[in-house]
């Protein structure tokens, strides 16, 4: 059976906890709060349970009861009484309280006020009985259901007033029950009650116990409408009337694009993808696609924009890959650079230039920066001990050595870490080290290396950061990661390597070495621009005129916020430093992570074989862009989003608006006579448009996409209420009205086509072709203009989207794998280079992590048992110590540094 859940639905908690408590085996499917799951219900109801027999259970309490029935626990008069009371009394009261708290912003006591009576009732019942649970000595379905309903408002027992003693202790016991804890972890995020907001706002207020008397307001749709002032409505109507004449002229940059005095000059980079990996969907949304949306948006705003990117090609990994495939490193790079280029072309990424790091410009610029650093005395020399394989004639990177673990004597410990004991290892400490390539025995050699003196540059860095943070938009994770690096203090970083495939170090004594990729790769931004235009310095040595945006996944933050800025600050040549650092979290695949080796997940080159158009991929990836927290790609969700948001909402609206013009008005936009309702609509759309602009200016791409969907929802609602298809058959006044509604609707469709352009360029172009929107209209301002005036002739209108069918999606899901139950790990985003010591240098081991996770759970249970049975303190302490050690190992196996407290991210089952 399948259990459909949505994040932020308070009801999800009870069904998950009940499933856990009864041991029911269900398959979880995540759907949006307004996802249509139960075919016969008009209003979406989630959670819902789809039984194998085909029956749907849509009532959360019935689902809970069903789980308990499966476990052989029949309901009694007492349990059904509690459940009925919960459904009729408690639930409405709690909804009111939550609504007041989350949506209307009420605080503490006020919130509890709405449920005080019901709380007292539970407390009384518990007091009058002597049993610890509502219906007896053990927890029943009633306890689970009531607890889950109360949890979103209470969270813990401390907010309960003292006089409700019995309720307090019951709630505390329930909070500690394992199924309850698991349900909380799985449904809720650390955002607290806020996460219910989206869900609650979608609930028609009529479902809630409303304190105010019922009004005659239509309850049809529930767009959370802000009240509009008369001025706003009048202003929107005035702006609309100005039409296309009010549009500024489109900015057509010269080729090559160079900064222009007096204009906003935006330079956008996306983290350079490492050449020998085929990028997966997580890499694509993490940098190139996000940067693309922003670049397209900037162009729509008439800002002078340059978007550059390219492949990062130097380093050990390329050398090894070349050995494997029997090619030269250069041939490998040529081969994979083409692969990358084709993938991005297919995804419609609008690079102004897509280059690579293996160019003469790279050598010149990197060496010049190096010389400046040398002259300014910010480089240090030190001796490093390294393993060298004489047979292969090269120094071995950590991951190319194996040997016996110096701590636990495990035979196959790797150069960086032991899989058995999890301890970190310095490769030279390995006993009997072995070269992984030729199985020969490497020897320890000392080698001179150059270091960037970060401690010396720290002061300048902090000064610059302070100013950049005050004036620029840095995502919260970027600030956080940077701050934690600074807090730990900076250490000198080695910038050279004993390799051949790289930029040569131009200094006597170091001629046989190359620059370490982390030093080299960010310089790629400059050299790639240099390959685009000889006047590259006008972008990169021009902080007065240029605003620089860096896009990346969060694992790349330290290189862009600390190390590279230090390089540029140390070189002292008026370089353009990053103003806005935009980092995403990770995108997971279904329940696990993308894995090339296990063939799990969708990789860039496969997306095109699915038959799903690039724009649909773009839409879905942007819809779940991991802004603020990790998100997960799910096939089922892709289907839902396509069918509900694109097909039923956006596509439906645009198509209807165009069809009315064609069918009823011969393809010419009819005259419009705006009434109050129409003007009000213009004002609402204008508000959404402003919101859209504000969000995109802050690079909140995912949220901005939702504004477009809101606009089309307004449009649908407008058509639905005014029924132009009926009025067109009526008397003259009705026909005029039908004309007005059609004209306004088709202009909203036109606005949507412009707003959509950064997100779905092909669909945008299709709409514009169908409606014959002039190219000059592709400019975004803060006003909603009537761009298709009466008399404007439109073209042929046809549907924009295709329905995705379940069997089609199931087939794809089978093909690409998924539904794995491994513990979820973050998938590495586009990585510029391996980063020793930065956390991701630690190797992850999913199998080991899984075993450890189980061991941690077991040991945890053991500890709890000891505690409840009041065992001796010594015994408990020993058990706790074992638990902590296990947790530490788990952290290591999951690739997190053990000494860093594990991030608060939730663990998925």
């Amino acid at each position, binding site marked *: 059976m399948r259990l459909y859940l949505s994040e932020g639905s308070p009801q999800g908690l009870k069904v998950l906890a009940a499933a856990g408590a009864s041991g029911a085996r269900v398959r979880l499917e995540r759907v949006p709060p307004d996802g249509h799951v139960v075919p016969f219900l008009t209003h979406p109801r989630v959670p819902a349970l789809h039984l194998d027999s085909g029956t749907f259970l*849509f009532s959360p309490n019935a689902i809970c*009861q069903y789980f308990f*029935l499966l476990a052989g626990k029949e309901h009694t008069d007492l349990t*059904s009484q509690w459940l009925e009371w919960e459904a009729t009394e408690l639930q409405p009261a709690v909804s009111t309280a939550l609504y007041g708290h989350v949506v209307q912003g009420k605080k503490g006591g006020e919130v509890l006020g709405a449920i005080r009576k019901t709380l007292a009732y539970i407390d009384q019942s518990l007091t009058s009985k002597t049993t610890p649970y509502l219906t007896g000595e053990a927890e029943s379905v009633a306890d689970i259901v009531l607890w889950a309903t109360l949890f979103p408002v209470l969270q813990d027992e401390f907010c309960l007033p003292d006089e409700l003693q019995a309720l307090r202790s019951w709630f505390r016991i329930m909070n500690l029950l394992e199924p309850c804890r698991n349900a909380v972890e799985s449904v809720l995020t650390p955002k607290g009650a806020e996460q219910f907001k989206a869900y609650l706002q979608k609930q028609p207020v009529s479902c809630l116990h409303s304190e105010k008397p019922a009004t005659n307001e239509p309850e049809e749709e529930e767009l959370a409408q802000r009240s509009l002032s008369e001025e706003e409505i009048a202003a929107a109507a005035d702006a609309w009337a100005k039409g296309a004449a009010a549009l500024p002229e489109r900015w057509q940059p010269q080729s090559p694009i160079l900064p222009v005095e007096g204009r906003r000059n935006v330079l956008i980079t996306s983290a350079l993808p490492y050449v020998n990996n085929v990028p997966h969907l997580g890499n694509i949304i993490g940098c190139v696609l996000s940067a693309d949306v922003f670049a397209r948006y900037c162009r729509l705003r008439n800002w002078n924009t340059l978007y550059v990117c390219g492949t990062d090609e130097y380093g050990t990994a390329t050398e090894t890959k070349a050995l494997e495939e029997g090619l030269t490193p250069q041939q490998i790079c040529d081969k994979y650079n083409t692969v990358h280029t084709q993938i991005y072309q297919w995804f419609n990424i609008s690079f102004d230039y897509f280059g690579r790091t293996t160019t003469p410009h790279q050598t010149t610029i990197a060496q010049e920066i190096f010389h400046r650093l040398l002259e300014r005395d910010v480089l240090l020399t030190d001796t490093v001990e390294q393993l060298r394989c004489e047979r292969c004639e090269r120094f071995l990177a950590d991951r190319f050595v194996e040997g016996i673990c110096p701590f636990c004597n495990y035979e196959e410990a790797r150069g960086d870490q032991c899989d058995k004991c999890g301890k970190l290892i310095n490769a030279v400490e390995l006993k009997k080290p072995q070269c992984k390539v030729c199985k020969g025995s490497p020897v320890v050699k000392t080698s001179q290396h150059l270091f960037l003196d970060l401690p010396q540059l720290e002061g300048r860095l902090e000064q610059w950061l302070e100013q950049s943070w005050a004036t620029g938009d840095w995502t919260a994770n970027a600030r956080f990661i940077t701050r934690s690096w600074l807090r730990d203090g900076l250490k000198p970083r080695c910038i050279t390597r004993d390799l051949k495939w790289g930029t040569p170090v131009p200094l006597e004594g170091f001629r046989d070495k190359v620059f370490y990729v982390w030093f080299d790769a960010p310089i790629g931004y400059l050299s790639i621009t240099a390959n685009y235009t000889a006047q590259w310095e006008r972008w990169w040595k021009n902080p007065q005129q240029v605003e620089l945006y860096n896009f990346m996944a969060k694992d790349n933050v330290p290189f862009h916020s600390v190390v590279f800025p230090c390089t540029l600050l140390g070189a002292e040549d008026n370089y353009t430093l990053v103003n806005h650092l935009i980092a995403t979290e990770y995108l997971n695949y279904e329940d696990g992570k993308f894995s090339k080796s296990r063939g799990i997940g969708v990789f860039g080159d496969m997306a095109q074989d699915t038959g799903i158009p690039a724009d649909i991929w773009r839409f879905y990836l942007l819809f779940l862009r991991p802004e603020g927290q990790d998100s997960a790609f799910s096939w089922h969700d892709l289907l839902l989003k396509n069918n509900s948001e694109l097909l039923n909402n956006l596509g439906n609206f645009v198509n209807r608006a165009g069809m009315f013009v064609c069918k009823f008005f011969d393809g010419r936009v009819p005259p419009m006579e705006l009434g109050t309702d129409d003007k009000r609509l213009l004002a609402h759309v204008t508000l959404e448009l402003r919101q859209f602009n504000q969000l995109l200016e802050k690079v909140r791409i995912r949220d901005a996409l939702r504004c477009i969907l809101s606009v089309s929802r307004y449009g649908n609602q407008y058509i639905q209420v005014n029924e132009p298809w009926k009025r067109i058959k009526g008397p003259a006044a009705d026909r005029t009205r039908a004309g007005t509604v059609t004209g306004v609707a088709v202009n909203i469709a036109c606005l949507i086509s412009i707003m959509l352009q950064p997100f779905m360029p092909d669909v945008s172009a299709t709409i514009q072709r169908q409606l014959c929107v002039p190219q000059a209209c592709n400019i975004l301002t803060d006003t909603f203009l009537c761009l298709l005036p009466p008399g404007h002739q439109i073209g042929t209108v046809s549907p924009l989207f295709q329905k995705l069918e379940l069997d089609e999606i199931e087939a794809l899901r089978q093909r690409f794998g998924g539904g794995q139950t491994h513990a979820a790990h973050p998938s590495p985003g586009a990585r510029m280079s391996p980063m020793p010591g930065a956390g991701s240098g630690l190797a992850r081991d999913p199998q080991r992590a899984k075993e450890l996770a189980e061991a941690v759970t077991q040991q945890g249970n053991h500890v709890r048992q000891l505690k409840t049975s009041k065992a001796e303190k010594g015994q408990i302490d020993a058990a706790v110590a074992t638990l902590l050690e296990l947790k530490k190992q788990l952290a290591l196996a999951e690739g997190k540094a053990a000494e860093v407290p594990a991030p608060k991210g939730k663990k998925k089952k």
Partner: protein
Amino acid sequence: MAVAAGLGPEAEELVLLEKSLGLTKGNKYGVQGERKSPVLQINNGPSLTGLATIATHLVKQAKKEQLLGKTAEEKAVVQQWLEYRVTQIALPCTKEDTRVILKDLNLYLEDKVYLARNNFTLADILMYYGLHHIIIDLTVQEKEKYLNVSRWFNHIQHYPGIRQHLSSIIFMKNRLFTNA
């Protein structure tokens, strides 16, 4: 029979249910709270509150457990519709609420004889009582529009012993509006 005047409609419904179950010794009901939920005082025992709870209790008392569903799935389906009955239909409904209820129910009953597919259960009885005041006000067109609801409703009202003093509602056998 002890039907005190002024009892909530739900208590009256329970009296109807008792009779249809063949329970002759009538129980006495009180009401509680703003919602006027029915309360049943059991001899020497705790009281029971709530329409669905008491109805379930009465079915067991009459030893007609099959009305609560035979399999776990059927039992859950019955409980679900009892909950639907007390949460969706009990409250004062707006026109729009009523429309949604009828529309959803109509779609649900499209391929079913009873609410729990092929078996007559307590869910049918309580939904019938709960919907009676709504169905009685429907126009002929609406009855045709919600054809499956009408078919089901007509079926239940003719089930022996269920309708009692409630008025019999007429459903046309011939369709009047072909494009309804």
